[in-house]
């Protein structure tokens, strides 16, 4: 028997909360008795599409309005559901202990009250990030811009100003940094050591952190002192390595850093060339890990670092290999939350299997349109700017990727599904709890092999072992190295073609 449901939609103008908070609010409200579905979100274009997709009828609104959309068993459930919305929204704003002193409203105002060496971490929507970052630089402080969707012209303006004052801009579009052991944004908890990382790539940095940490269990002295994420576009022609140069200068000057590693998404050739020349002139040795066709993968870079420090690289762990049967079709589907991991897998897969279509394609002719599932090998980066406008990063909000996982699994052409899962500070407290059921569901009908690269350490707040075990139990084969996971997926597809 189906019972009729009741939709309740209201707009709250003047109300605002960030997308992460609203996701938590939506989840809390969904758990309220009588609530069938709940979505509390700012009325951005992408969120309105999601709401319409859920069947809600949304009145005219602006992106500054908050939409409360509830589907309920009955009219009588409305008050309780709204009370749950209000309760979930209430504790999100810090109130400050002293009633006469309101919290600061701008970064500049906060910096007037804070320690002279304070680092600013900016994670407001991209259109407003530059203004906050500029406050920090103007106050003579370093800044990390977690926000994505920051126009490249603004990135250049920020980094030029920073360079003129000897300040460092970390990010945008690379949400990872470790500064003297403190993780900012998405960062893995690692043992301290004498390696410094400069990363024009967030998940590339995390991959390196995770591999080096794992190797450090047996290789004495292997650990990371600083990992400075300089932004995924820093080595593009437009930005020209402005922040990389400052980060290298800092690490070179740090007597506690013995070896510097530079890791990047595929850089602009002329910028890579200039960088290679400049790093050769530094006092501290530099290992370059710049992704590209014919270049080493990130795991090979980690191995080279270990060898330089006099250690033999370990076997990178793999779990759940028994789960994986033969490929169920001819095509490889990679669904990533990490852009650099997606890049790395594409480079490897296209060398072995031929063209790979993507929303972050290796060349323009391989671009995917709105339909992310086509009759080719595909790899999608769900962390790309276009898919995060007006919503949280997929490391926090897995909805879009999980939907696509179900679609890919249902496609008879899909032979293997390749996924990543990234742990660390800033990521979901229990991401496997959201991904494992989706993997299990994907494998239910056709036993599609699912290979996962799990980027994380045993010090991460989520617990590496528990996350891995949940994925293995759901039927995935789990690798610590993304390159190793990708090789495994390629091998399965090649086996099916034979």
């Amino acid at each position: 028997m189906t019972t009729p449901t009741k939709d309740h939609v209201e707009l709250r103008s003047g109300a605002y909360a960030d997308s992460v908070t609203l996701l938590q609010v939506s989840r809390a409200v969904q758990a309220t008795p009588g609530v069938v579905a709940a979505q509390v979100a700012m009325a951005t274009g992408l969120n309105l599409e999601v709401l319409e997709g859920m069947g809600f009828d949304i009145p005219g609104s602006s992106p500054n309005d908050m939409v409360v959309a509830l589907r309920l068993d009955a009219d009588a459930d409305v008050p309780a559901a709204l009370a749950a919305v209000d309760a979930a929204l209430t504790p999100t704003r810090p109130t400050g202990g002293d009633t006469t002193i309101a919290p600061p409203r701008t970064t500049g105002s906060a910096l007037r009250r804070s320690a002279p060496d304070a680092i600013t971490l900016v994670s407001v929507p991209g259109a407003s990030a530059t203004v906050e970052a500029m406050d920090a630089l103007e106050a003579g402080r370093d800044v990390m811009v977690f926000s994505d969707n920051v126009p490249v012209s603004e990135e250049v303006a920020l980094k030029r100003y920073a360079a003129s004052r000897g300040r460092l801009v970390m990010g945008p579009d690379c949400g990872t940094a470790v500064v003297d052991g403190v993780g900012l944004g998405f960062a893995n908890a690692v043992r301290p050591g004498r390696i410094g990382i400069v990363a024009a790539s967030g998940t590339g940095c995390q991959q390196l952190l995770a591999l080096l940490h794992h190797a450090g269990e047996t290789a004495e002295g292997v650990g990371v002192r600083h990992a400075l994420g300089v932004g995924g576009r820093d080595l593009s022609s437009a930005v020209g390595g402005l922040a990389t140069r400052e980060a290298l200068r800092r690490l070179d000057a740090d007597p506690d850093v013995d070896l510097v590693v530079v890791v990047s998404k595929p850089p602009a050739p002329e910028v890579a060339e200039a960088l290679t020349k400049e790093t050769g002139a530094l006092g501290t040795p530099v290992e370059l890990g710049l992704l590209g066709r014919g270049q080493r993968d990130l795991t090979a870079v980690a191995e080279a670092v270990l060898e330089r420090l006099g250690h033999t690289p370990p076997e990178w762990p793999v779990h759940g290999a028994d789960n994986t049967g033969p490929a169920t079709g001819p095509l490889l589907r990679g669904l990533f939350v990490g852009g650099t991991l997606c890049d790395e897998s594409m480079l490897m897969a296209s060398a072995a299997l031929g063209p790979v279509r993507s929303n972050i394609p290796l060349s323009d002719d391989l671009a995917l349109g709105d339909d992310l599932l086509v009759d080719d090998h595909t790899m999608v980066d769900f962390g790309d700017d276009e898919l995060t406008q007006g919503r949280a990063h997929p490391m926090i909000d897995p909805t879009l990727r999980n939907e696509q996982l179900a679609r890919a699994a249902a496609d008879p052409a899909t032979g293997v599904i390749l996924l990543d899962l990234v742990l660390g500070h800033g990521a979901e407290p229990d991401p496997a709890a959201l991904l494992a059921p989706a993997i299990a569901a994907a494998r239910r009908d056709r036993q599609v092999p699912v290979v996962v690269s799990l980027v994380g350490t045993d010090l991460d707040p989520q617990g590496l072992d528990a996350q891995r075990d949940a994925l293995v139990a759901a039927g995935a084969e789990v690798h610590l190295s993304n390159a190793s996971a990708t090789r495994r997926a390629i091998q399965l597809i090649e086996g099916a073609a034979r």
Partner: protein
Amino acid sequence: MSQPTVVTVGADMFADSVAGQAVDVERVDWRPPMPGTEADLAAVATDPRRPDANRRAVEAMLGVTAHLVDVAPASEVLGLEKGQFLHAGPPIEWARTSGPLRGALMGGAALEGLVDDPEDAVALFESGSSVSLEPCHHRSAVGPMAGVVTPSMWMWVLEDRATGRRTYCSLNEGLGKVLRYGAYSSEVLTRLRWMGDVLGPLLQAAVRGTEEATDVTGILTQMLQMGDEAHNRNRAGTLMLLRDLSPAMVSSGSDAGFDSKDVADVLRFVGGNDHFFLNLAMPACKLALDAGRDVPGSTMVVAMARNGTDFGVQVSGTGDEWFTGPAQVAEGLFLGDYGPDDANADIGDSAITETAGIGGFAMATAPAIVRLVGGTVPDALATTRRMHEITLAENPRWSVPVLEFMGTPTGIDVSKVCRTAILPQINTGMAGKVAGVGQVGAGLVTPPAEIFPKALAALAARVPSA
């Protein structure tokens, strides 16, 4: 690089994550900027001229000391001729003038002998022949409320000794039925004539006869510590001015032919008018702000003014352009039987005090007036603290004892107003809507929000392309 403390702006999750690593975190209570301003804010933020331009504008403003150097008729010091009228706020034509500005212009026309009966002036202003209207601000002057200045009115003359720059303001008439609130009865005109015949000339004799020119900026420093915020409360300032001028009023006044009754009348008039010093505070503020004008790239507000119809701002980086919107009606307390329906929209150049960082911005220092303008002492402290969110500097000279001698918030930044949607807080008097009524109350008001995005867009349009 060593273990950092962290300021976070944005998702609480990242602040929690940093705090979870046992690192000190200061969280910014960020909210979206005024709608549609994101791109202009980014353009202005990354204007390479801005940081230095604002520093220069602020330093120039804070570097000014206003001295009282003369008192003289507007015809002499402003070159104002018969038929020329100055008024408060941005430019306006007769057809759009509000009741109090009309009343003041009508009274002014009668004072100058252009008409016998103020009521006859309506036809004169409607015809527009042989009369002209011009903002006080365009002649280095400021006028409280309607701010009407005519050639025969006597003006305070303030000077910045370092540059020789001067500003001007008329003499304060007192409260209630007065010209600046739009009243023009015979009692109002009689008082104005006495001010022209006795008050102005005696003050001139006193100022010219005082050895040390009165340091108006210095009096402001002291009065702020004595419970005046120098907009709605000027009691301590008025008495300090009297202390400085009264000896010379007696000695130079008698040399100039004034008898002891005149001197006594003037002392009684000034001492009995708690707002007398406002007309010195205002040009002192304008003198400081004018020094911060015309710095390319600067986002500092250099004037806020209202004509009873429009509220206008001028910004350092955009020259003499006015950005205007409809003036709001203040919230506050009313005299006698008057109520909100009787009040005209906000009027006067006196918001120059807030522009310079006193008045509503220094509310915390004036607990005695907090209730008059509708609030509690904690509200007053919070107001001053809140204004620091939208200003570029603290004025080290103007400090607030109850806030640990923190300087008053000074130099309104257009971009910070747009970022925070916090509007400047203005303490104000309320004029009656109908010409001739006079004052009906006092209270709190803010500018219309839309003028700040307009000014921001003009600043963004002037950013040189990279």
